[in-house]
């Protein structure tokens, strides 16, 4: 079922839940991994994903179709993850914890992280990137999205995204050199 089909089904009276179930079926896994790479913890990713879909459900009546359906729900999920990360950052700042060490500790203590030392370090470094930079890096590198798609989701210019991605990769490379 395409995005157009889902919207068409949703607009039929009494079919809203069926349309939303289709939307869930098609996109929940992809959105989960997008969120999971940002927040790293499975439990946090599950919370953020559910909150995102709840917002999507409530906002669907107002979906105007200015952007594609996937772009729209991806943006909601991204904003939900961003909010979560900002709150986490504030809590860490209040506790005056070292964010790098906290990120590593979180991964080491996570039963649902099965990476080796290099991957652990990589994700710990990614976690220390400025939030928008981290977002761009993950969407470009892991999700393999085009700059134009990312620009529409993050409401940023392609030039700014390219610069942001370049800085992110340089920081990661530098962190591995210094190790």
């Amino acid at each position: 079922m395409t995005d157009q089909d889902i919207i068409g089904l949703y607009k039929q009276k009494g079919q809203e839940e069926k349309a939303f179930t289709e939307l869930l079926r098609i996109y929940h896994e992809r959105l989960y991994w997008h969120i999971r790479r940002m927040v790293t913890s499975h439990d946090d990713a599950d919370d953020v994903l559910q909150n995102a879909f709840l917002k999507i459900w409530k906002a669907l009546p107002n979906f105007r179709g200015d952007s594609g359906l996937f772009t729209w729900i991806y943006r909601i999920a991204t904003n939900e993850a961003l909010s979560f990360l900002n709150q986490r950052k504030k809590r860490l700042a209040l506790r005056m914890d070292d964010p790098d060490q906290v990120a590593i500790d979180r991964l080491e203590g996570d039963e649902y992280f099965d990476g080796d030392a290099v991957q652990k370090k990589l994700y710990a470094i990614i976690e220390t990137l400025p939030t928008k930079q981290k977002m761009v890096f993950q969407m470009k590198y892991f999700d393999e999205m085009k700059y134009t798609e990312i620009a529409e989701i993050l409401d940023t210019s392609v030039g700014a995204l390219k610069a942001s991605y370049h800085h992110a990769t340089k920081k990661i490379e530098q962190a591995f050199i210094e190790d």
Partner: protein
Amino acid sequence: MKDSNIWQDRAKSNPFIVPQGYFESFEERMMARIAVETKPATKRFLPMPMIRWIAGVAAVFILGFIGVQQFYLKPHQVLMNQGAMYNVIAYYAQDLDDASLTSMMADNEILTIEESQDDAIDLMEWMDVDEMAIIDAMINMAY
């Protein structure tokens, strides 16, 4: 010099795992959550005996208050606050005698006003508001 691109060899493989059955059960859990979170507020449908009881208590209260006001309260009229109203509810629940009720109402005196026809009307309007508060309190107690 260390290979700064060492991370590229490992980056694309996914180190994250999920609990067994997580994705398979996600739709069901999500729809269940939506059903709970978007549940409309339930209307209160009171059984008729409850409605009659509330109406009876409200009528007795109004008549009783008017009587108490005329024969037991001081010349300065008293505006009862919500707390006093709930005490009256307790009166009917606990079978307090009139003297105890009068004392409770006197203790809750918050304002005195000069006797006047306009103030009496204000008092009745105040009574209507509190009467609804009584019904709300009873409904909350029932549910």
